[in-house]
């Protein structure tokens, strides 16, 4: 196969990781959404590359799906949400950014260590990127932990989904179509439900600060 493709895939992978870090450190909520959209774009791009390189046609389908869902629909929904909920404030994080970066780096190292031994088994051209996918997942996990508002948490959740998809395409050439459809459906429904939720929360607490959601506890 063509080394160009490998390089391209690795490039997109790097872009995804970079975006993940950017999201981790991003304070502004609108910017977060844009970053998320970009990550989706990178994901689509890498998927397309893989499809193109390997002629796995069903990957085009999943790429289209990804594009539709993660670059168009979800960001749009999020936009509408925050406009309707009029939340444009800065997102303060629970621990300060540099520390988070450091932790993030440690995570990346850890993820690479985990992925290294098994990625050799992959026949995929994108085998090197499994570690990056795992890193993305862990980073978005970290982001969910450290954000104290509802919307950023949701975004973190979604970018975790991105990481998973990236893993699916990089490690294996995508999951079976029926599974991918199911997953996409779930994500979509989940997004809708989340929207409903955010409204409910909003009307209850007239704020989306999840500090309000700490009543149920053992005392």
């Amino acid at each position, binding site marked *: 196969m063509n080394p160009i493709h490998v390089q391209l895939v690795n490039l997109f992978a790097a872009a995804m990781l970079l975006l993940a870090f950017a999201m981790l450190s991003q304070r502004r909520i609108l910017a977060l959404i844009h970053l998320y959209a970009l990550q989706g774009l990178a994901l689509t791009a890498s998927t397309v590359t893989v499809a193109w390189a390997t002629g796995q046609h069903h990957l085009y389908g999943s790429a289209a799906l990804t594009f539709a869902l993660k670059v168009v629909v979800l960001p749009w929904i999020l936009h509408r949400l925050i406009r309707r909920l009029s939340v444009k404030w800065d997102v303060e994080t629970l621990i300060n950014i540099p520390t988070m970066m450091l932790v993030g780096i440690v995570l990346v190292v850890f993820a690479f260590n985990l992925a290294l031994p098994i990625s050799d088994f992959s026949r995929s051209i994108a085998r090197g990127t499994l570690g990056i996918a795992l890193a993305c997942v862990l980073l978005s996990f970290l982001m969910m932990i450290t954000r104290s508002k509802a919307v950023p948490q949701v975004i973190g959740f979604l970018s975790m989904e991105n990481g998973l998809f990236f893993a699916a395409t990089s490690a294996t050439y995508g999951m079976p179509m029926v599974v991918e459809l199911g997953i996409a459906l779930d994500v979509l429904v989940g997004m809708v439900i989340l929207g409903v*939720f955010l409204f409910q*929360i909003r009307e209850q607490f007239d704020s989306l600060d999840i500090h*309000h959601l700490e009543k149920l506890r053992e005392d």
Partner: protein
Amino acid sequence: MDALLLVLAVPLAGGFGLWVLGERDSAPEINAAFSFATFAAAAWLTEDVISTGPVTGFDEQFFVDPLNVFLVALTAFVGLTTSLFSRPYMRTERDKGRMTPARLRLYHSMYQLFMFTMLLALTTNNMGILWVAMEAATLTTVLLVSVYRTPASLEAAWKYFILCGVGIAQALFGTILLYFAAERVLGRQGDALLWTHLDVVKHQLEPAIMSLAFVFLLVGYGTKVGLVPLHNWLPDAHAEGPTPISAVLSGLLLNVALYCVIRCKVLAEGALDSRFAGDMMMGFGLLSTVAAAFFLSRQRDIKRMFAYSSIEHMGLMTFAFGMGGPIANFAGLLHMTVHSLVKSAIFFAVGHAAQKAGTQLMEEIRGLLRVSPRVGWGLMIGTLAILGMPPFGVFASEFLILTTAMREHAWATPLLLLALGVAFAAIFSRVQPMVFGETTLRRLPYQPALTPVFVHLGLALMLGLYIPPYLAAWYQQAAKLLG
């Protein structure tokens, strides 16, 4: 085959049907009718499997073997009884104004869809679909948890959604890795995720990948099982949702999640020649059992308390399946059955009690025996049963688990016994004054539906004293299947 189709189609149709019909006075009955149809279909399916052995269908996307057929039957059965219970319960809620017609409509349709997702998860052969179904099960219930729109219920639902969502995401990563491992053996065609195929080739799967995959699957599905320290969503969701939902969450969803875990464990055990998977499950199980026992003794909300008790019992089952071997697996399956029977029965009784008291705070519920003896006895007997008092089935399974543990992991036995003792003291010291003593409660407009309670307890009692041979044979096959 047709039975399988029915089992899946009926609740799906029910879900949409009830949504389309909208809220009407007969909706609870329709709901019950659909549940009954599902149960009938499940019975038919069971009958098929007993007579003709395992069934697969829709080019192997679905299959039913002794392991999941009894879970299907159990799920359909508890679903039916719960729908029966929820008739008077929900009517009372409506009269209290806690349920608007819109919410009732949501409740009924989602109830059916929830049943569908669980049955789908149980019957599917495709690990990917399994994941999809589990995620869908979360999505269908999350709105039911928050259906009262109280701050507490919203918070509970939010946590439920986020924590389980994240958990499930990890499970997806695990599934991807599983597929990654599988396609090297089975090739790229779609059946690389079919459990039956994987089961055949499990010994060739790459250990390094499988161990990683199993970790993600365990942590992922384990979140839904409610293993400590992944359990935090569980007490909130159980306590704040409507009681029928607590009953099915505790009695069924946790089972299904555990079912996913053990399916994965079978593959992992096959691929790894170490006891890694089993030990992991034992560790989580033990931790959950002990921690939950100590959580129990601080509870004031009754549904919350029994939610923790569910964590404890799930831990016990996980421990049992972790040990593996015919007896332990048998015990685990038996425990699954009796736990979901008894626990849902308890939630039924608790629901009525809480409605009478108008609160879920235990110190405000007193003297149930005075105001309605049957609820009181139901709660008392159910509690004693769940605490492992003979002659109920819970004791039988706990006896088997403990004795096996004594044999193979003697060190764990004292911990388990400690946990059981603490749990006993904690739960019983709270339930007894609720049942006994003078009362402050009042009567309810609708006659509580207690038949389900006593049917469940009766079955649990029977399982403690006498396990019908075909059921025993069934458990044994399933146990063998789990290795």
